């Protein structure tokens, strides 16, 4: 209730920050565009990478191995976060909580075994 009554005042800083953020972007973009010197040559329009000329097409298949491993890491990393609240409340949750956590770990482990068996971690 309190929040609603003071609505306009309370949100003023947010609005202020919003305008500053937008204003910063607009101002810097406009300023660089207007102030900066411009010399347009055809070389400037070609794709450019570290001073080396481009060879071949940029869109060809590449290995996603690293991506896959990274995703799996994030997955298991996030799952492990569940351990923290359990550890904090270990005493209160008692034996039932432990069993539930074990079940959770078993599921996680089953997933891990599945991934290994499927060969997702084989680098070669």
């Amino acid at each position, binding site marked *: *209730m309190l929040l*609603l009554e003071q609505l306009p005042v309370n949100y003023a800083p947010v609005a202020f920050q919003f305008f500053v953020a937008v204003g910063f972007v607009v101002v810097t973009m406009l300023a660089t565009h207007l102030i900066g010197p411009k010399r347009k040559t055809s070389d400037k329009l070609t794709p450019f990478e570290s001073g080396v000329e481009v060879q071949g097409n940029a869109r060809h298949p590449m290995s996603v191995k690293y991506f896959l491993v990274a995703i799996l890491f994030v997955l298991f990393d996030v799952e492990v976060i569940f351990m923290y609240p359990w550890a904090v409340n270990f005493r209160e949750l008692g034996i039932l909580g432990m069993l539930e956590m074990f079940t959770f770990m078993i*599921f996680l482990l*089953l997933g891990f075994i*599945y991934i290994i*068996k*499927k060969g997702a971690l084989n680098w070669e």
Partner: protein
Amino acid sequence: MSSIIIIAITAIVVLYLGLYKVKSALLPVSVLGLLGAAASLVCVWDKNISYFNDMLVFNNYAIAFSILLIATTILIFLLSGNYFEKISSNVAEYYTILLFALSGGVVMVSFQNMSMLFIGIEILSVSMYIMAGIKKTDSASNEAALKYFLMGSFATGILLFGIALIYGATGSFNLVQIAGKASEQPLLFYAGVIFMLIAMTFKVGVAPFHFWTPDVYQGAPTLVSSFMSTVVKTAGFAAFLRLFGSAFTSVPAIWTVTLVVMVVLTLLIGNITAAFQQNVKRMLAYSSISHAGYMLIAILLLGQASPNAILIYSVAYSIASVASFGVMVAVKEQKGSDDLSAFNGLGRTNPVLAFVMTVALCSLGGIPLTAGFFGKFYIFGVAIAANYTWLIAIAVLMAAVGIYYYFKVIIAMYLRESENSESIQLSLAYKFVLIFCIMITILLGIAPALITNIL
């Protein structure tokens, strides 16, 4: 609760069976697991058990819809035969993901707490994103998955925002407590209700949030589309009704107007667009949008009769959809296409398939003596009693349009000549599912009282 556990464990068992290359056991184990889950639900009928501080409540509503979801999944699994093997080598994953999706669906129909609703929807949706794009080399399938994922996650965000607003207004996730505190913070609460309305209508594919539906249905493998249009939709509507029927009843004015506009839009867009389709799969996709419109009428009229109306409609619609998608899979396998012309002359070459399709389409169109008729009849009856005459006049007109496009398929099957006269060979399980669906459709058309009085 035990049913969710059984389904999840079945999913993991199936996954490992696939890992150890026991392909022949995949289907029997899945079906057995599902039957076990259904049996465990039947055992707790009328018991009203709640779990985890009322996070899940298995009342009769939840049980009836869960059984419907499980039964539909079993039928789709039986249809799959060697369908999945043809599109991919990872067959076990299909079963697993669909089973996980189903467990999400069961959570969705039995939630009593908004966080469980969110978890249920996510389990279901994420599985469906994967299933939509499972044909990795097919660009249509990829497009479907990407569209579905992007728009779906957007809707999830809106849902979460709605839940947050409602939590902010009432200080609770529990549906019953929310209903009690609805009037404390009207502004936040109403905003939350509208956000949740948008998210739920997106998930069930109601206009104007329907744009993903046709592309996704067409791009996904046909059996997955049938899963989406039956299990996913039923779960979505059951959750929708459970949410609005128990938590938001006290504020109907704020969302009924929005909902009426949505119903009319959905009926018009779904039916009229479907009438112009030349591809049967796409036509069924649009028709599924229109069916969402009819079911939405029952939600609009929140009352004692609404759960029954949704249940009857879902049963009729799910069963007829499974049968029609099943016929479509068989036709596509032989002719290589699911255009209207692929159905030409089916009545002569495959009388059984054509008959099944005819009954299924009649049920979808709402012709008497099929289950679909009573689905529509019940909803129209409830709406007329609530004095929504003009809305029902539109709905009835659109039902007539619906019959027109369903009959386009029937015309193709019986009145057109086909180029090749080979009949399609079907496996025993396939025939069983199709005949079973038709029997149920006709049985419920003659004696609807079998399921109407259970809720």
